[in-house]
């Protein structure tokens, strides 16, 4: 795949850069910035650094519109991960990352290295990783290719987290045909640290050392950053050579060693960054860029796994489990000795220079000498114009469910893979290592205790491409609001979000429209929920043969629980407790799971919803939970009220007797802003006065049987029957 060392003039005429993801205008721009024709290595570095993955050239104008700061944010987007103050001297650090393309090509290693990469982002800030979450989207599991993807991707995620010893505490798994050949594999990592130990990825101070540590550099994933930013076609097989392999054992050593450096050698450490997309070049040049420094690296010193690697290959390799540190001159030996104790390859491979040049030496020659800014700040930015897709200009008429059987429909939805119990997936994740997991997979959000404090963190990942397909702005807002509801249901106050923006080709105006519009919805909801965006990641070009996936922003949200005794789960607890529906129910069926399941597609206009009111309801409910007035809580999402009630019944092994004065079909409506909660009878008055008009008393918990009355139908079904349907659906589909 390599075009070895064409001369600058040959590059100008033979244009090998086109195969590296740079177009002619970008090449010309590079030539202008340098005032000369770039050599082969320099072209390679620019192709990596100017890719969407590193430079966000299409998404930057959109990302700029995000709301990123409130009084709790200690560090926003721009570093490895964002940081939020959680009190008692501690901060939470989190970020999510997509590995869609690598996972489509090599599902096991693609997913594994996605997890490995996001973990490095967290400990590069100096935080101890305490939890992982994933967000997966697949096609129809009846398709054998999809089943194989699920199998391998789930194994890749599990094996990495299990081995390194970070619990995978939650996530989500969605199914829709649009992901059949382009699965979504997003991973999120959450860490905790002391607020006064935040580390940044910078290389400052002339003469200070650059230290390479970790795995040797091989010819794997070369130019992965520009590859990840390119779209698929079915004959991708040719590209399947230099797959990156994850080594969680190596990463555990690296993580423990780096945390020891940040804990015990703060005086020596200037900055630290992991080598992710565009490997050595991006980590080093970004560190120089953030400190406005110059830098020289000697490539002959870089530990190499294969002989005869070219500068291009060394700099753009995406070999995993590597970190770059900047260490004060004179402290090199102490840091190198520390890493050696962990049996890690460690070398001083360069120095911070005066000026602003980025210089690379290889076998006595200068193979790159460019201003740092050319690779960082001067990367092109494109201001695309969006065009509303035709399906949104004239939406189909509203979907009416018509006459349906409550029981048959409930069964159908409980067996749908989107609602089915996901134990078959998350059972292969160690959810408890580190012994802090209060709520693992199975609740609305995971809850992890923070050692050394009286607090816990709640966390969730959510996405819903169906809604965005119908309306990116409203859909974007729904995704954020639903995440917040998931946290509130456990008793947590939402703190902030990270995101993975999974979209199609941004050069297509219709795709770009979805990206830009959904950012508006996300921003509006973030403000309403008081959850700034502190980190995130963009994955564009999610297309197969020209067809884009549903626009799918994945929201990872973290919340704070200040009193461990207020942690709440969805399970019904006790017979005779009162059941309330919180929020209003309307005929909102466009984009619903019911529509998807009964018609095989989604269509129609998405109903707007009132973010302010949703946020107010959430605040009131959270206050009630914190006053111990609520014994169980669950948000109403996919499948509507009856599915949510069934979830609570199945989880608690108890039934319910409820009276919902609505048309039967409305029990599957997906109106936003709703919860179901239970309240002990003695707290009825206190709860009702806390919730005001939001709360509708609808029934009581009873043993074993779900009994539902509506305007036009009734339902009586043993809970164990529902449990069996829900539990057996996915294992059966995945067989």
């Amino acid at each position, binding site marked *: 795949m390599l075009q070895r060392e064409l001369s600058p003039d040959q590059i100008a005429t033979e244009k090998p850069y086109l195969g590296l993801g740079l177009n002619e205008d970008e090449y010309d721009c590079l030539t202008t910035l340098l005032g000369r024709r770039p050599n082969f290595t320099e072209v390679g570095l620019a192709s990596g650094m100017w890719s969407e993955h590193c430079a966000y050239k299409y998404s930057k104008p959109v990302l700029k519109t995000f709301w990123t700061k409130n009084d709790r944010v200690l560090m926003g987007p721009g570093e490895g991960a964002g940081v939020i103050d959680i009190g008692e001297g501690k901060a939470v650090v989190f970020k999510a990352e997509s590995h869609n393309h690598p996972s489509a090509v090599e599902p096991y290693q693609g997913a594994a290295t996605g997890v490995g990469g996001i973990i490095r982002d967290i400990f590069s800030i100096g935080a101890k990783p305490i939890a992982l979450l994933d967000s997966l989207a697949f096609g129809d599991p009846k398709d054998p290719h999809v089943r194989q993807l699920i199998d391998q991707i789930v194994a890749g995620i599990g094996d990495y987290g299990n081995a390194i010893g970070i619990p995978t505490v939650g996530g989500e798994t969605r199914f829709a045909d649009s992901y059949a050949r382009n699965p979504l594999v997003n991973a999120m990592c959450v860490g905790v640290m002391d607020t006064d130990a935040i580390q940044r990825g910078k290389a400052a101070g002339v003469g200070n050392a650059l230290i390479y540590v970790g795995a040797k550099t091989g010819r794997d994933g070369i130019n992965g950053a520009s590859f990840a930013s390119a779209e698929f076609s079915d004959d991708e097989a040719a590209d399947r050579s*230099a797959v*990156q392999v994850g080594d969680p054992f190596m990463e555990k050593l690296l993580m423990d060693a780096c945390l020891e450096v940040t804990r015990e050698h703060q005086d020596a450490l200037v900055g630290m960054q992991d080598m992710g997309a565009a490997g050595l070049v991006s980590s080093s040049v970004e560190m120089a860029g953030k400190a406005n420094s110059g830098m020289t690296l000697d490539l002959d010193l870089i530990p190499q796994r294969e002989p005869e690697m070219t500068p291009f290959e060394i700099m753009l390799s995406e070999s995993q489990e590597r970190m770059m540190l900047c260490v004060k001159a004179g402290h090199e030996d102490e840091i190198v000795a520390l890493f050696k104790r962990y049996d890690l390859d460690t070398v001083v491979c360069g120095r911070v220079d005066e000026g602003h040049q980025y210089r690379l030496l290889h076998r006595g020659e200068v193979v790159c000498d460019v201003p740092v800014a050319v690779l960082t700040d001067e990367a092109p930015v494109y201001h695309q114009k969006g065009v509303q897709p035709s399906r949104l200009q004239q939406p189909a008429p509203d979907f009416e469910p018509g006459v349906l059987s409550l029981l048959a429909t409930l069964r159908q939805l409980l067996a749908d893979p989107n609602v089915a119990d996901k134990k078959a997936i998350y059972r292969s994740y160690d959810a408890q290592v580190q012994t802090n997991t209060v709520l693992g997979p199975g609740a609305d959000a995971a809850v992890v205790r923070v050692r050394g404090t009286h607090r816990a963190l709640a966390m969730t990942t959510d996405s819903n491409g169906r809604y965005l397909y119908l309306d990116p702005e409203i859909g974007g807002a729904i995704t954020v609001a639903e995440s917040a509801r998931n946290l509130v249901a456990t008793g947590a106050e939402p703190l902030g979000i990270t995101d993975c923006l999974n979209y199609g080709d941004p050069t297509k105006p219709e795709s770009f429209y979805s990206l830009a519009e959904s950012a508006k919805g996300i921003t509006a909801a973030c403000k309403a929920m008081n959850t700034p965006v502190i980190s995130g990641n963009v994955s564009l070009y999610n297309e197969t043969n020209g067809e884009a996936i549903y626009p799918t922003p994945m929201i990872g949200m973290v919340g704070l629980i200040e009193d461990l005794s207020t942690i709440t789960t969805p399970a019904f607890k006790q017979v005779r407790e009162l059941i309330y529906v919180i929020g209003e129910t309307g005929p909102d069926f466009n984009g619903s799971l019911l529509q998807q399941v009964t018609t095989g597609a989604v269509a129609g206009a998405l109903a707007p919803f009132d973010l302010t009111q949703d946020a107010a309801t959430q605040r009131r409910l959270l206050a009630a939970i914190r006053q111990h007035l609520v014994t169980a809580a669950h948000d109403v999402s996919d499948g509507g009220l009856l599915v949510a009630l069934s979830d609570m019944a199945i989880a608690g092994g108890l039934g319910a007797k409820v009276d919902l004065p609505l048309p039967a079909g409305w029990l599957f409506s997906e109106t936003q802003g709703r919860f179901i909660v239970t309240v002990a009878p003695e707290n009825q008055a206190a709860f009702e006065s806390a919730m005001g008009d939001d709360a509708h008393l609808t029934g009581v918990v009873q043993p074993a049987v779900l009994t539902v009355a509506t305007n036009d139908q009734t339902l009586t079904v043993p809970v164990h029957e529902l449990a069996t349907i829900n539990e057996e659906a996915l294992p059966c589909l995945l067989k």
Partner: protein
Amino acid sequence: MFKAKIFVNYKPSVLDPKAEVIQNTLARLGDDNVQHVLVGKYFELLLSGDEAAVRAQIDRICDTMLANINTESYRFTLEPVSDAAVAE
């Protein structure tokens, strides 16, 4: 009836953490004359059918199940075996 002996190995450019750990441990234990370690998988399958069909079948089974074509390559040999040998 044929016996297929199938070898699945990592492609040379792919990092193999298993081999690394084994070689490092051997060196630490004094077996430092071991200069290279390759860790592969070995399968034996007994299959009935005619030879050309069986060859094609094994290729398919390797491509889809026994080997990960992204990171591994495979080779195999096929020997006829008598049914008596099979029963043993």
